[in-house]
């Protein structure tokens, strides 16, 4: 269980979160939806430990994790393609693997590459890959640390339906053993991952849409 207790976050004078509390169940998939700029990415970054809340605490299975523990147990996949563009897929995997003490083995990497249909691209330089393939590599890098919590910020934005489906299948598979948190704006993704949906913000559009489709959600 990930527990947010009275979390407050301000950007200059703008309050993004004011004493917010939330409980996220272990394992399974949790989706965060809401309008742009409402603070979805900020929330994920705080859970990942990349940003610190101004006040409040975040507990993981009832305890606070040190930076080292977060590094070991949380995989974060940013919205941007955070890869070395001039290096090949294999070189990127080797680079980020080299920053970690414990990583998934090469067989598992090969499995993910195959599952995402990019095993042929291992020797290709990242800047020559399509946007979809770059996103898939971006995802695999996030899995290298063998995380128990996987956080993804709009992992399927701007890619074709086939690639999106492949990524969704991998995430589904991962959610059986790992807590997967992600943000999305895509309706098919919201319909596909209805385990736990957290609605952020006051915008009625998302609320109406969820209620129209009879999808249960938690309001933050």
């Amino acid at each position, binding site marked *: 269980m990930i527990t947010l207790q009275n979390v407050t976050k301000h950007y200059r004078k703008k309050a993004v979160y004011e004493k917010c509390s939330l409980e996220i169940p272990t394992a399974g998939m949790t989706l965060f939806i809401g309008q742009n700029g409402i603070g979805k990415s900020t929330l994920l970054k705080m859970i990942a430990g*990349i940003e610190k809340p101004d006040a409040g605490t975040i507990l993981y299975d009832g305890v606070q994790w040190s930076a080292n523990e977060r*590094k070991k147990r949380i995989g974060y996949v940013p919205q*941007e393609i955070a*890869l070395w563009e001039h290096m090949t897929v294999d070189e990127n995997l*080797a*680079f*980020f693997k080299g*920053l970690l003490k414990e990583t998934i083995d090469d067989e598992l990497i090969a499995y993910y590459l195959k599952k995402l249909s990019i095993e042929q691209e291992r020797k290709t330089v990242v800047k020559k890959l399509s946007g979809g393939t770059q996103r898939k590599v971006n995802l695999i890098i996030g899995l290298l*640390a063998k995380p128990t919590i996987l956080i993804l910020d709009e992992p399927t934005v701007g890619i074709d339906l086939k690639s999106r489906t492949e990524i969704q299948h991998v995430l589904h598979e991962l959610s059986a053993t790992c807590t997967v948190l992600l943000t999305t704006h895509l309706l098919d993704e919201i319909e596909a991952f209805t385990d736990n949906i957290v609605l952020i913000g006051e915008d009625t559009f998302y609320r109406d849409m969820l209620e129209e489709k009879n999808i249960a959600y938690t309001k933050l």
Partner: protein
Amino acid sequence: MKSFFQLIVVKNWRTYAILFAAFLVLGGVLKLLIAEQNRLIELPVAVQNFDDSESSKQLMTALKKQPRFHVTNLSTEERYPEDEVAKQRAVAVVIIPDDYEKRLAARQTSGVLTLYVQHNMVGDIVTETISKTAYKQQLPYIVAQHLKVKNIALEDVFAKYKKVEPKGQLTMRSLVDSSPQSLGLAAVIIVMLLVGVAQIGLNRALCQPQALARVRIYETNYRKFYMVYVAAHSFVLVVGALGLMMLIGLSVSATAIFVLLAAAVVFEIGVALLLTHVRTWSHQLFMALIFAMTLAVIIILLQLGGVA
């Protein structure tokens, strides 16, 4: 650390090759400029030798050994040797008469050499040097003259003189060690820093904010990135600068290496910070240039002994 070595050194080898090449090209250009400068300060002296004797050849050899002298033979057919000086092709013209050796032996050396010389300070220096060289050649003959009464042959005097020739009273010491306050070293450091600015353009591949941000997730900070970056680039700058020093004939010493290394490390720390904290290329370049120039000004002030 291995990952950073791979990223910063192995995948980035072209940067180092280009920096080395820049130092070599600069060193070559400076070497040519210095050679040209040295040629300009050579003192051209023409010698017209009418006496085909050992003594006259000896004198010419002695003149050629004089530092900064560039001695040329003037044909004995030349009827107006003074024109060499008048037309400023030579600072001085020395005319050795056909009875030079005989007059040396007979101790009749007054006015034996004719000298045309420019009437200026350079001419005075050349006159003094030629005079000293000619006088030195006469010494054994003077000694032999005094020993004539004791029936000592000139050859014996030469042999003895060769053994006991007095050494100069001046102790000449060339400064070969680079002082930390050497202006030559300061100039090399400034060149090194300016060449170093080029890495802002050459290291575009390392300046990828999203990938760097991901590094921070795993590493918390850029400590290892900075360490490898600063070490690798400082090494290249120092080795390049030392190569430059050797090419242009500046002596390399432990002091010089230390001063170069200190300047390179300080500069590289600044460049590494710029690469990770400033996103816009033109801003990075501008700030690196300003940083290099600021360091250069500090170094020059240190060489000049500080601000009065």
